[in-house]
């Protein structure tokens, strides 16, 4: 009687980035893969992102970031999730993040970082698998 569980993803844009085209592209691609996307818009604080993910019972948070402040925002979001006993929520990201910075973000606990030009299908496949193995 119970339905297949829906994958729910918060797509967030922390900080002062001025546009969210990339975030919208990934949001639409994930929707077309059958997921429910909670879209929160520009200029979110890490606190707002984490509270949103908890209230929305999200499986994952996708952070899109262009400003260069990725180290700070990823760390803060991941720390807050730990603080709120919600480390099972997957964190992944994309945007303009230099190749060299990726390993340290993964060390912090990010599940995956998708750089510019990554086909959306790669992100979808990864996310579906990550959510499946988590639950």
């Amino acid at each position, binding site marked *: *009687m*119970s*339905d*297949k*569980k*829906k994958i*729910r993803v918060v797509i967030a844009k922390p900080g002062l980035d001025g546009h969210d085209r990339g975030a919208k592209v990934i*949001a*639409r691609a*994930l*929707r*077309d*893969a*059958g*997921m*429910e*996307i*909670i*879209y*929160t*818009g520009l200029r*979110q*604080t890490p*606190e*707002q992102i984490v*509270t*949103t993910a*908890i*209230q*929305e*019972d999200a499986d994952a948070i996708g952070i899109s970031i262009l400003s260069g402040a990725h180290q700070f925002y990823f760390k803060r979001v991941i720390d807050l999730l730990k603080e*709120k*006993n*919600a480390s099972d929520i997957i964190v992944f990201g994309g945007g303009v993040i230099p190749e060299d910075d990726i390993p340290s973000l993964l060390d912090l606990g990010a599940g995956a970082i998708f750089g510019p030009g990554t086909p959306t299908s790669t992100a979808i496949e990864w996310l579906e698998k990550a959510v499946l193995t988590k639950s």
Partner: protein
Amino acid sequence: MSTLAERATAGDVRAMARLISMAEDRADGIDSLMKELYPRTGRAWTIGVTGSPGAGKSTLTDKLIGHFRSKGSTVGVLAVDPSSPYTGGAILADRLRMQRHTDDDGVFMRSLGARGSLGGLSRGTREGVLILDACGYDIVIIETVGVGQSEIDVMRVADTVCVVLVPGLGDDIQAMKAGIMEIADLFVVNKADRPGADRLVHEVRGVLEFLRGRDWVPTISQTVAETGDGVAELGERLLSHREYSGKSGAGRERELARLKTKIEEIMLERLSSQVETLWTDRREELLEAVHERRLDPYTVAEELLSRA
């Protein structure tokens, strides 16, 4: 170990959120959790906000949250957005306009995908209201998907239904139509600073003429949700409807009708899952017989039911 229901009612937001997901997914075990929660419900006031796409429902909801918070009430919000009929996916963006309340512990907001429900709500909305009620929220606001003329499920969930209209969407005959216009306890003419607002108010007033003599005649509020103009007054009018419902017994009547629907729904759901098992052993044979006109669908159905 404590159950999810116990954790949620003790204020664990994660548990609350998980319960709502379980209700939405119809997950195994949700029924017994709802049984546990039900005795704690019955205190929250549920306000439905409905209206056409782009009428300003989310912005108005945002301002109403602010209004009720300033009066000291805690507020839960369930905001429904459409799901894709092709992929089942959805972009839920009502929250975008209410995000300023995310930092407020007295507010819980949840976005729901309609997932094929046609009445303007999602399948788990009713349970979502009960869950937030049991967890102690004073007011639960339900924002429906943008509706046309006949998505009226919100009246089966909300104590007070607020229909949001905007100028410039249609001629006066639209206001006469059945369905959505009939379920309003209050009308809101939003974007009231735009041309045509006065005319719209006049048209709605014309429709309400037919209701003269009833105990409760819907009021018409004018708001500009973007700036907050008129929202405090709307808040007061919502409150008068609540007081009327309590005093007149109309609220109790509505609640009883709602419970009747709910109980019958549960029975129907259980029965329909039994229906399949009634003929699993003979399905092919009977389908073949009906297809070849040796039997008719009515006789087959009657016979199968008589075996139940």
